[in-house]
């Protein structure tokens, strides 16, 4: 036990003392932060677009159009740049000119840079026709912002033609049916509105997918760390000295434990950051809402739920970690390991691909079947746990994963020893022989 601890400690310190570790520690939060904020920044960093209106429709809709444009005027604030700015018609254009003349002049005006976009409204046999001219790179932006208003103008025009009162037409246009999605559990709970209720309704799914992703990332990263660590020891010829000092079990378990501690450190620091951020969020929220959200979040994770998540994570970590460590014992470079790692990475990618669909429909039969496959279980079951599951599914998947983990440990132990003492090339055949005990020890 003492040897296992020493090996685990060395493994842990060897990793956390590197600059790379601290860089990688901040990489995931940085990637997540960037993926959220960069698109927002990009969207809002667009320059203010000047828009002129040329109403040739004869319906006198210039005022309504101007209102629609003004509704998208730039707002002050860090993320609220961009938007539309209404400008007077450039010289050479007027509301009484024929549409053909306007069409002939507009491209040159846009090209001269006097204005970024010009909306030309005409009547095309009783149907409003909007031609929105823009400079290169701006095409479609104005349309995206005001198309609802433009369609509205046509809607009201049609209503007026059929003698429908404007206010009635307005009500018809704005009218929506009430649609509520229910489950027996949510129907039984007292109905409330607001953020806390949304957390209670959808939090389980969000939490499920978040935990699935974290499990996947943690297991994949740990496996790669273990692989790299063993390859380094094999390449530097330390492995044989270690095997002459400690049992294969101590060595393997120590390494797996050491890397698990690395991942725990990472997870702990991330959790601490998340806690600090959410505490700040709660502090700026109205106190009633923050209490409700806190209660809803804590209700999502019961001790039993946490225990199951840990069990699935542990099983997955052992299955893949031990396997990758054993592979490393055969290799002196990452390239040597590619023949085996490639197919295993594909296996690891499959549950990743299903997560998006699983998020919206966690009860799909296909997902249910896949979660019974032990190599997918640790990634898909946390997702499925967001909904109530029959006990036999939980017990069955845990048992399947446990059996495979034990087989992996058994095979991994033999493979690790065989790999550490040989210089042979790693193949699936060699692994199979080791698994079936045909390889000489």
């Amino acid at each position, binding site marked *: 036990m003492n040897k296992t601890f020493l090996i685990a400690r060395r493994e842990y310190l060897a990793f956390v003392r590197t600059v790379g570790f601290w860089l990688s520690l901040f990489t995931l939060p940085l990637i997540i932060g960037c993926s959220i904020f960069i698109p927002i920044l990009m969207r809002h960093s667009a320059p203010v677009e000047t828009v002129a209106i040329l109403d040739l429709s004869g319906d006198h809709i210039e005022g309504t159009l101007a209102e629609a444009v003004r509704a998208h005027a730039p707002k002050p604030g860090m993320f609220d740049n961009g938007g539309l700015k209404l400008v007077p018609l450039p010289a050479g254009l007027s509301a009484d000119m024929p549409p053909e003349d306007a069409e002939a002049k507009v491209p040159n005006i846009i090209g001269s840079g006097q204005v970024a976009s010009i909306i030309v409204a005409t009547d095309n046999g009783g149907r409003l026709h909007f031609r929105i001219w823009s400079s290169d790179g701006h095409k479609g932006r104005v349309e995206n912002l005001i198309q609802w208003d433009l369609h509205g103008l046509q809607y009201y025009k049609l209503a007026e033609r059929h003698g429908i009162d404007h206010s009635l037409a307005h009500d018809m246009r704005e009218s929506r049916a009430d649609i509520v999605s229910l489950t027996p559990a949510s129907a039984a709970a007292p109905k409330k509105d607001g953020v806390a209720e949304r957390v209670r309704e959808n939090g389980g799914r969000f939490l499920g997918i978040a935990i699935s992703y974290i499990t996947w990332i943690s297991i994949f990263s740990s496996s790669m760390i273990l692989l790299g660590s063993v390859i380094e020891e094999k390449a*530097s010829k330390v492995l044989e000295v270690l095997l002459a000092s400690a049992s294969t079990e101590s060595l393997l378990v120590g390494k797996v434990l050491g890397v698990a501690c690395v991942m725990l450190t990472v997870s702990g620091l991330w959790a601490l950051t998340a806690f600090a951020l959410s505490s700040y969020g709660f502090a700026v929220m109205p106190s009633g809402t923050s209490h409700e959200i806190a209660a809803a979040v804590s209700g999502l994770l019961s001790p039993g739920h946490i225990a199951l998540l840990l069990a699935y994570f542990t099983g997955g970590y052992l299955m893949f970690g031990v396997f990758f460590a054993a592979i490393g014992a055969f290799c002196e470079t990452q390239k040597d390991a590619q023949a085996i790692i490639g197919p295993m990475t594909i296996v690891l990618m499959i549950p990743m691909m299903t997560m998006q669909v699983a998020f919206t429909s966690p009860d799909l039969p296909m997902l249910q079947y896949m979660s019974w496959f032990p190599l997918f279980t640790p990634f898909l079951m946390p997702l499925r746990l967001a909904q109530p599951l029959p006990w036999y599914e939980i017990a069955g998947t845990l048992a399947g994963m446990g059996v495979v983990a034990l087989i992996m440990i058994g095979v991994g132990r033999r493979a690790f020893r065989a790999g550490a003492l040989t210089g042979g090339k790693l193949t699936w055949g060699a692994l199979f022989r080791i698994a079936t005990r045909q390889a000489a020890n």
Partner: protein
Amino acid sequence: MVDRALSLMGVSKRYGDFSAVSDLSFEVKRGAICGFLGPNGAGKTTSVRMMLGLSEVSAGRIDVLGRPAGQALDRIGFMPEERGLYRKMTPLDVIVFLAGLKGVKTAAARRRGKAMLEAQGLEPFMNKQIRSLSKGMSQKVQLISCLVHEPELVILDEPFSGLDPVNQQGLETVIRDLARQGTTVLFSTHVMQHAERLCEQVVLLAKGRKVFEGTLQAARAAAPRHLDLEGALNEADLLTLPGIVAAVDMGEAGDGAHVWQCHLKKGHTAHEALKAAFLRGLDVRRFEAREPSLHEAFIVLTGAGHE
């Protein structure tokens, strides 16, 4: 206490149809220096791994320090043929870590490690990363790692390979000192000079089989003695002399004379051959009877000279 540090009884190792070691038996007494000799591929490393329990025996039994192989690892110091250490760790940290795996407490390991590093002149490099050390320094650190837990048995697999003559001499001194302190040393090598200078006992391995076990004198006795003759001689005349089975012309010695190296048949003496040469009036101007070196004995015993 058992007076044998190491005991191999009918040990074999097979990989499928290939037999790496066959029916190997020998013993090493406590406090002895045993040379485990053999050409490359003779099965030395495989045998060493079996002694350490790293590799299972296909047949036979190995006892190390009175226990089955692999069960007394904490009392053994081992330096493998392919040496290496954690390149990003400092020498002292590596020594403390490896000593810890052998059951030495951190404080004691640190104290002993420092003292041994100082003794080897490595004090200034104690806290530098191993990758910044020269190859010779790294090898010294490796040796210290192997000895820091004060093992009763030290197994060194090809310890002299890659060392310069000064470090080879240093290592020989270390081995002698260990034996003087009562530590048993077994080292494998295919360079006979080291064994010749260090060992009381040698075990010779060829193609996985033991071809000799015993003292250096006994090993030498297994090889033919030599009689070097200088004079105006020819091979045909020399082969008629009693006991001479081969005569090799080693080159001219001036004034029409040549140096001939004659191999004597086992059981015959140089005296008989010389006497006969003088009686027949052969032109012998100088002669020298020579004991075979361990290297020559090694070639004869392993049959390498005939391959």
